[in-house]
């Protein structure tokens, strides 16, 4: 199935959860990223139960804390 991650088209073999997608995308610490699926932010507690579906548009938003 085809999905979009951070604006780029990607192909994945089967339906997976956000937790599995984070592993696939090598995101080591899920606490450091905010996950948005089709314009909705997903609660961290729901990563295990939220399945990525064909056509989903996913954004990973990373914390940036610098400024000085």
């Amino acid at each position, binding site marked *: 199935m085809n999905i979009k991650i*951070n*604006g780029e088209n990607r192909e994945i073999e089967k339906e997976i959860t956000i937790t599995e997608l984070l592993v696939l995308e090598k995101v080591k*610490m899920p*606490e*450091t990223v*905010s996950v*948005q699926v089709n*314009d909705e*932010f997903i609660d*961290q507690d729901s990563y295990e139960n939220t399945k990525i579906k064909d056509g989903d548009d996913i*954004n990973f*938003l*990373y*914390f*940036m*804390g*610098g*400024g*000085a």
Partner: protein
Amino acid sequence: MRDFSDEELERYSRHIILEDVGIEGQDKIMDSKILIIGAGGLGSPVALYLAAAGVGEIGIVDGDVVDLSNLQRQVIHATKDIGVPKCESARAKMIAINPHIKVNTYKKFVDASNLLELVSGYDFIIDGTDNFSAKFLINDACVLANKPYSHGGILRFGGQTMTIKPNESACYACVFDRPPPKDAVPTCSSAGILGAIAGMLGTIQATEALKYIVGAGQPLYNSLLSFDAKTMNFRKINFKKNPKCRVCGGEGIKELKDYEAVVCESKI
């Protein structure tokens, strides 16, 4: 509207001839009060451009003194300023650019005890801080005080920014909920920052503040602009206000609390 002197008409002529600003817009800029929290990498370009633009009253909050390692990116400070409080060093350069403006200096770091009072005297707030506790605290204070503000973050070759109009557009906590675990996200001091990135992001924040004051264009409401300067890719991610947001949602917050304190409480 004020009577502009000949000197002011000439000084601000490129604003005045600009469609969407004009003499009315310049008048609004000169009537406005903007608070810059942090006179560092982001605060430097913001302070220089807002002073040059003629913002009537600018507050600068920073409890630090200028350090040699700041000078690679904090362009408002000079080598001779090492050891001088950053807010005073910044003020001197701003007044040198534009003696007509008023600059208020606050040599302190923001916390839950002083932030609400600080933001209350200003029309727009700039987050130029370098840590998550301060960034979330500024968000909370601006939501509580209903003050529009610009969030900014930079790291290595990248930056991100969003503009928040509390209760109307998504706040920082709608997107990021709460600070990441301590040391989970690298900082500029641990991972580095290309100096010019601070200029790239800071000038966007200054632009957003001036757009808001003048009422020109579309501020970065409900969207996070992020860029990677290595590829020069800019992306805007759109979202909506989260009705369940911990800070600005249904229940929301009722008072300001320091984030370290919140962490301590949850351990008890």
